[in-house]
């Protein structure tokens, strides 16, 4: 090993330090930016919004009503809000959970609520009707179909999340 090789020239030294310091500063600037950019992905994906509602083996081809409560906090008080859904197994075996809130003015609809219209959801307030799929029956007051709950199944339990309006609604 010659002494000369180990020596760092002035130019090299400056290069190293400047790159080092510059890199450090750049990292200092970029790190928070990256953090902000990926922040939505880091959020605990609203997992708490899903609530256990029913056991999957309770669910049949016939819509059944399930109720559950969620804690809702607004500026003044925390309260328990009751939620309901009409849940059934569709022909392909997948589960459909419909919001019971009428899209006309917000009354609660019920499955076969009127004996004149079997196999339909019926709203007692203004005779709004929906097919089993939740689609609104043309010519009755509701302008769109019933909202659909996000759902997932874990260990034989059905969890429901938020009710989402239909596509194109």
């Amino acid at each position, binding site marked *: 090993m010659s002494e000369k090789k180990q020596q760092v020239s002035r130019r090299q030294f400056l290069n190293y330090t400047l790159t080092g310091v510059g890199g450090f500063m750049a990292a200092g600037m970029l790190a928070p930016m990256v953090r902000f950019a990926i922040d939505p992905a880091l959020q605990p994906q609203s997992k708490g919004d899903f609530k256990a509602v029913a056991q999957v083996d309770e669910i049949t081809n016939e819509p059944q009503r399930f109720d559950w409560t969620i804690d809702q906090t607004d500026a003044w008080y925390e309260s*328990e809000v*009751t939620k309901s859904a009409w849940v059934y197994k569709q022909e392909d075996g997948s589960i459909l959970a419909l919001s019971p*809130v*009428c899209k*006309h*003015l*917000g*009354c*609660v609809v019920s499955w076969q609520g009127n004996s004149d219209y079997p196999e339909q959801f019926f*709203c*007692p*307030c*203004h005779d709004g009707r929906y097919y089993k799929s939740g689609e609104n029956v043309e010519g009755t*007051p509701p302008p769109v179909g019933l909202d659909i709950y996000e759902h997932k199944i874990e260990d034989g339990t059905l969890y429901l999340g938020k009710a989402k309006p239909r596509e194109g609604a």
Partner: protein
Amino acid sequence: MQWNKKDIEQYIEVKEYVDTLVIPLTPFTLNADKEMVKQASQAELMEIYAKEIERQFTGRILLLPNYTYQTVNETEEKRLNEWINYSEDNPFKHVFFITFDHQWKKVEKGIEGNLIWLPTISISEIGSQDSVKLIKEQVEQVTELIKSYW
């Protein structure tokens, strides 16, 4: 719909669909301790009932604020009838008074609207599973009753 800004603004848009008024009647006393406790707990319960009924029929019912009074007498009876006339002009078809106070039951014939008197259920804890179930069942019966008038 409830008596708050958001609902009333919506009500104004869709007046023709809302034809039923619901007015809870809740008494109050200030000089009898036991009675006060009873009335307060009934008032609490009434709020739950009223909200629950309103939730079932949001699009057709307007839930007014509670009417508070000391005792049922002719003046109060007359007042209810005045409201019924007033609401029919403006233009509600059905008026339901809902109460736990049995004194109203006696003067029911003189009231031109529909009086729904509910027997009180004494429940120790309003939030408990059993009481929720009980209340739900009673609400269901009341909503059936209201439906039969439509």
